[in-house]
């Protein structure tokens, strides 16, 4: 790696660190009133970051962040009002309680959104509804909790300020000190979040955003990760809400309002979606603008904000930091350059065998895969009609049949994408008929779909690693496995290339490599030869035959030539039922099979 690349790589750490130190110095020097006002900008930036975690990383535009912010603010303040007299210090009470309630509200909402597997629009709308629901409730909600009085429309007052000293004499910090404290808290949270997003957790979240169905096919419980990410962001938002309450000493229901709900997306869009630091830039710019123009309520801030938002969406989708980032990358060597000088893939059978033997050692022997009276229908169409099959290791199995014969429906029912009306699917000794997809994968099922499914924004090695990590849960072992598979595919030079820069054929191989990283005990391949050149098809055939020596392999394929090279057992499906079976020579001699295949009818 060159020096310029190193600087670029660490920019997410060094620049915010420099910014933090500069901010601390500035906070110490500036006018107290400006210090007071700018504290809120930083808090809004933190709120924006909580949305960036959910939206930029997780892929869900949540309009519920202000709800978690408000919930955190209210409960954190109630804790501060009641307990800060005990210690003098207010933040040790307020911040944990605030983030706890932010997290709890996020958990409640997130559970419904993710476990009901809601669509994008519905999720956004539901999060919005959640915020509005709280808004209408809190406006008339009156209750005394200890010495705290929540007074509906009149809000919650007498919230202690930011107090970091202990004991009876501890007092609220002055504006400059308060700003410095908030800078430190925010910096800690930023670096913590950045660390989290660079850990395996962050990588999995990235994968879910790029292709959640593929992530599930790698054996990850997608919903769990989405929910955890949402809860984490909720905790950050709750903490931001508490800081806000301590800063302003007062909280009103307007934190839940419609206008407020749309502010975090604006911060994120201005700064740059998915950049984590961007929302701070966005909040700072809006803060400065309304400060100069004279407050958010009056003046022309709203006018400028509205136009800015439109222009951003139309012309600068990546925001300020995102655009600077792509500008910077133009001056660096192109990491995807290596994608252009690839040779055609040659499978090294010895390396492959070693990988398969290792896999067998770690994951146990190959498993049988069977279906009993499997039945699936859509309205009047029955694509899978009481199919009994038992697949065992040794030779590859091919499922053939004309278009609409039910091949892919059978496969999808086996994978778990379709739920059968009746019948059983067994993996080894386990009945997996109603198991979710990721559990089937954990039990040893590997799936390669017809189209290449790779994570385009991730490097080749990261693609393999994320698959290997799913099984091993050990970063180093996962890295070793991915390197072996990388060598087998001959992709050593392309290690750092983005998967999206690879050609269609190379993506197919990378996808197959990811499946191998899972060390599956049974492999299902859907039309793997589609779109491959003749050379590639030959290598693929070799790979499948080698695989079948160590695991159970089922291939759904249309191309009889390819099937014949596999030298395995062939089953022909027709109208959802097993029509014929045997080896390929026998089937090719069968006139009935040819009639069905060529669309010949008796009268010609």
């Amino acid at each position, binding site marked *: 790696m060159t020096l310029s690349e190193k600087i670029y790589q660490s920019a997410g750490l060094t620049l915010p660190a420099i910014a933090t130190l500069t901010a601390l110095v500035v906070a110490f020097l500036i006018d107290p009133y400006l210090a007071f006002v700018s504290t809120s900008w930083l808090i809004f930036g933190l709120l924006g970051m909580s949305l960036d975690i959910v939206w930029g990383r997780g892929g869900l535009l949540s309009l519920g962040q202000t709800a978690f912010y408000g919930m955190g603010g209210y409960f954190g303040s109630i804790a501060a009002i009641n307990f800060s007299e005990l210690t003098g210090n207010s933040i040790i009470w307020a911040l944990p309680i605030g983030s706890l309630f932010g997290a709890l509200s996020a958990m409640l909402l997130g559970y419904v959104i993710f476990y009901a597997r809601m669509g994008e629009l519905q999720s956004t709308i539901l999060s919005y509804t959640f915020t509005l629901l709280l808004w209408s409730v809190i406006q008339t909600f009156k209750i005394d909790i200890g010495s705290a009085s929540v007074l509906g429309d009149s809000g919650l007052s007498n919230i202690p300020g930011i107090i970091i000293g202990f004991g009876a004499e501890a007092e609220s910090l002055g504006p400059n000190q308060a700003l410095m404290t908030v800078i430190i808290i925010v910096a800690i949270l930023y670096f913590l979040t950045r660390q989290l997003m660079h850990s395996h957790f962050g990588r999995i979240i990235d994968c879910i955003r790029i292709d959640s169905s593929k992530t599930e096919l790698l054996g990850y419980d997608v919903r769990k990760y989405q929910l955890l990410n949402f809860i984490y962001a909720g905790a950050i938002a709750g903490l931001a809400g508490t800081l806000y309450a301590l800063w302003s000493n007062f909280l009103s229901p307007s934190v839940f309002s419609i206008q407020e709900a749309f502010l975090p997306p604006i911060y994120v869009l201005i700064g740059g979606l998915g950049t984590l630091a961007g929302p701070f830039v966005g909040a700072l710019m809006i803060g400065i603008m309304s400060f100069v123009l004279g407050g958010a309520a009056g003046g022309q801030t709203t006018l400028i904000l509205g136009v800015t938002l439109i222009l951003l969406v139309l012309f600068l989708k990546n925001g300020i930091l995102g655009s600077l980032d792509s500008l910077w990358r133009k001056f660096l060597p192109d990491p995807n350059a290596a994608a252009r000088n690839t040779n055609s893939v040659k499978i090294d059978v010895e390396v492959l065998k070693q990988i398969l033997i290792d896999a067998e050692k770690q994951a146990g022997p190959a498993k049988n895969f069977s279906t009993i009276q499997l039945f699936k229908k859509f309205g009047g169409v029955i694509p899978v009609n009481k199919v009994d099959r038992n697949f065992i290791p040794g030779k590859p199995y091919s499922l053939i049949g*004309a*278009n*609409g014969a039910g091949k892919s429906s059978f496969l999808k029912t086996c994978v778990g994408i379709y739920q059968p009306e009746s019948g059983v699917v067994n993996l080894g000794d386990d009945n997996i008929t109603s198991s979710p997809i990721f559990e089937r994968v954990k039990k040893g099922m590997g799936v390669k779909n017809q189209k290449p499914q790779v994570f385009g924004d991730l490097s080749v090695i990261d693609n393999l690693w994320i698959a290997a990590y799913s099984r091993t849960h050990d970063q180093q072992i996962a890295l070793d496995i991915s390197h072996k598979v990388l060598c087998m595919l001959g992709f050593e030079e392309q290690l750092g290339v983005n998967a999206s820069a690879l050609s*269609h054929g190379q993506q197919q191989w990378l996808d197959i490599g990811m499946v191998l990283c899972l060390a599956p005990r049974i492999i299902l391949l859907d*039309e793997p030869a*589609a*779109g491959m*050149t*003749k050379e590639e098809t030959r290598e693929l055939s070799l790979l499948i035959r080698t695989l079948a020596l160590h695991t159970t392999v089922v291939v759904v394929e*249309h*191309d*009889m*030539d390819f099937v014949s090279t596999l030298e395995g057992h062939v089953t022909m499906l027709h109208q959802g039922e097993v029509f014929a079976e045997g080896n390929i020579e026998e089937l*090719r001699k069968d006139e009935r099979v*040819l009639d069905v*295949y*060529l*669309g*010949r*009818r008796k009268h*010609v």
Partner: protein
Amino acid sequence: MFKILNATGGYGKTTIIRDISLEVKAGEIVALLGRNGVGKSTVMRYAAGLIPAMAGHAEIEGIPMPNSPAKRAKMGLGYVPQGRFVFPRMTVIENIAVAAASNGYNPKNTVEELMEDFPILVPKANELAGGLSGGQQQVLALARALATRPKILLLDEPTEGVQPSIIDEMSGVLKRINKENNIAILVAEQDLDFCLSIATRAYVMDKGEVHMEIDRDSLRANKTLQKELLGV
């Protein structure tokens, strides 16, 4: 009359068809054969203007066609997609009428004419197209394309999921409109019988390229060739 010249195209960065050239002469029915996934549908979508051309172009009567699919339709290109794609929440009549009206023809007269051609649609005239069976939808998609009064008709897998009796009826209708209205037809198919029954000439595709051109009689006579071409 209708030509595709050096067509290269695909989805996103992926190239599916490479340097395809083919021609349909006036009044001719030509088949496009090949296995699943060799790019037949992509050729059809290329011709209809539904995917951007990476290279090459399509032309009618010597005039290159513009990019917009709507303008191509107005120049006389009728397209029946694989999977039919009728407008599901519109009635059978509306499906036909909207196609006629969009090209400046009287919707009422066109509907009447086409209902005569396709009596199977008459009892379903006021039902929503989404509720029709696969075969009925296929006939409707054909009627809809004819309502635009095309000079060249592109049919993509018209027999897929359609019962044999309707297939026979359809081949009869296609032959008739071909003769009576002098509409040239390009049909992409896997069903060899259907193709042999209507087309006089065929292009065979493999791996995104035109592999060979062959006339009906040679294809019909040669069983080994049939198997080889369709990869059985």
